[in-house]
């Protein structure tokens, strides 16, 4: 089997200025003061790995270690400063649930809007509409504006839309922590279904138990660099040890 994701030598640089220069006046002042050259900050540095098709890959690391940045470069949201990312197939990125929602619109309208944000067609959304609503358990709320939803309901709807059409690559960034326990279980089940259907999954989670339960291989990021890459048991064991001691 080939690789679904190949990350080779990816580095991501951000300009760390205290505040962004976005007006001409500020630009001029800084130009005169020669402060335009910000402090450079590498959120990712020389990260390389690949994920086989159908594999479930976990990424662990402390806050600010670059996990979200890495997922964003893989989804194509961020373009890496150096290096290359290669992906094959349709990606469904769940960086933040409900990012494409317009809260003034109803759930029904948002299903179509969000579906199109993810690049699905009208026919696909029509066909899957009932399934989406049913999985999200929002049958009675389809014509209610999303701004009246609880955050759990929003998350359910968004997760349901993002996973109803089997993506080739599913990217999950710390979103399984929302919603109640029952829904979390349902989500995990859905992810496992997708996995057995051949979808490649990349997961970032606060819950190391979840990573251990779902993933085959794990990458440990530290300050944007690869600390370790390997079997779940091995990496998670050392990671737990390190975070307990630290």
């Amino acid at each position: 089997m080939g690789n679904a994701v190949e990350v080779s030598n990816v580095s991501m640089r951000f300009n760390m200025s205290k505040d962004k220069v976005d007006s001409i006046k500020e630009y001029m002042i800084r130009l005169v003061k020669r402060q335009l050259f910000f402090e450079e900050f590498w959120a990712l540095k020389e990260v390389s790995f690949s994920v086989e098709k159908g594999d479930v890959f976990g990424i662990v690391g402390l806050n600010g270690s670059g996990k979200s940045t890495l997922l964003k470069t893989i989804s194509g949201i961020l373009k890496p400063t150096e290096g290359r990312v290669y992906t094959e197939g349709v990606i469904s990125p769940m960086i933040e649930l409900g990012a494409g929602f317009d809260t003034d619109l109803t759930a029904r309208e948002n299903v179509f809007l969000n579906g199109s944000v993810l690049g699905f067609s009208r026919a696909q959304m029509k066909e899957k509409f009932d399934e989406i609503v049913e999985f999200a358990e929002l049958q009675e709320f389809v014509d209610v504006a999303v701004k009246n939803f609880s955050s759990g309901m929003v998350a359910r709807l968004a997760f349901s839309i993002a996973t109803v059409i089997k993506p080739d690559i599913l990217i999950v960034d710390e979103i399984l922590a929302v919603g109640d326990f029952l829904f979390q279980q349902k989500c995990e089940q859905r992810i496992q279904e997708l996995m057995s259907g051949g979808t490649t999954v990349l997961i970032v989670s606060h819950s190391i138990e979840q990573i251990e339960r779902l993933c085959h291989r794990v990458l440990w990021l530290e300050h944007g660099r690869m600390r370790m890459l390997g079997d779940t048991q091995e990496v998670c064991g050392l990671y737990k040890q390190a975070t307990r001691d630290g």
Partner: protein
Amino acid sequence: MKKQLQTFLKYRFLLENLISRDLKVKYRRSVLGLCWSILNPLLMMLIITAVFSTIFRFEVENFSIYYLTGWLIFNFVSESTTAALQSIVNSATLIKKVYIPKYIFPLEKILFSFVNMFFSMIAVAIMIAVACLMGNMQLSWTMLLFPVPMLYALVFCIGFGMLIAAINVFFRDMGHLYSVCVTAWMYLTPIIYPMEALDRAQWVLPIIKCNPLYYYVTYFRDVVMYNTVPGPADNLICIGFSLAFLLLGGWVFKRTQDRFILHI
């Protein structure tokens, strides 16, 4: 090229959805809804006609239609580009969370205004019908050419909208500056005044001749009001402006789009 076309087709449904979302938001909770796109210009026309045909006394045949036609094109350009200007910055949450071809955002705003212009075109049609009934104007087949100048203006707006949307990401001053520019632009377009009114101010003419809107508005009036078909030269000027801005805007946008996310 082929790949870009495929991506565009893939996101066509998104474009439709965003446009219909904007329509819903614009007309929600208004009783007359879309009718406002027709009523609004008519009411404006009444005021302008009252003011300018009594106080300033421009000698223009069918002044209300003269105004309305100029207003239609100008309003499309100013409304669409003003919305496009903010489109990238306003879509920050989406751009940071999902991959979407970024030109979708300015393009959507331009197309949304374009749809609105077609609704407002009904107001022009009504006034022309009235003028024909009263014998002030004559129906002509050239009127059917009205979409041509609109399409020229559309292409211009897409390019210009992408250009200023990209600039606005890096310099937010653009937003403040632009509303002033639009006012100046309005006075440099013959919407209310006839070109003859400029006889006393010859120095403005070269400036107006650099204004693409002058050509689009003139073209529009030629086919809708004066039953004439602009010749190849006029068409070439219009196409030239439109394509030049499309290429410039597209080029600047493409060059800068990967850095948008770092500034929004």
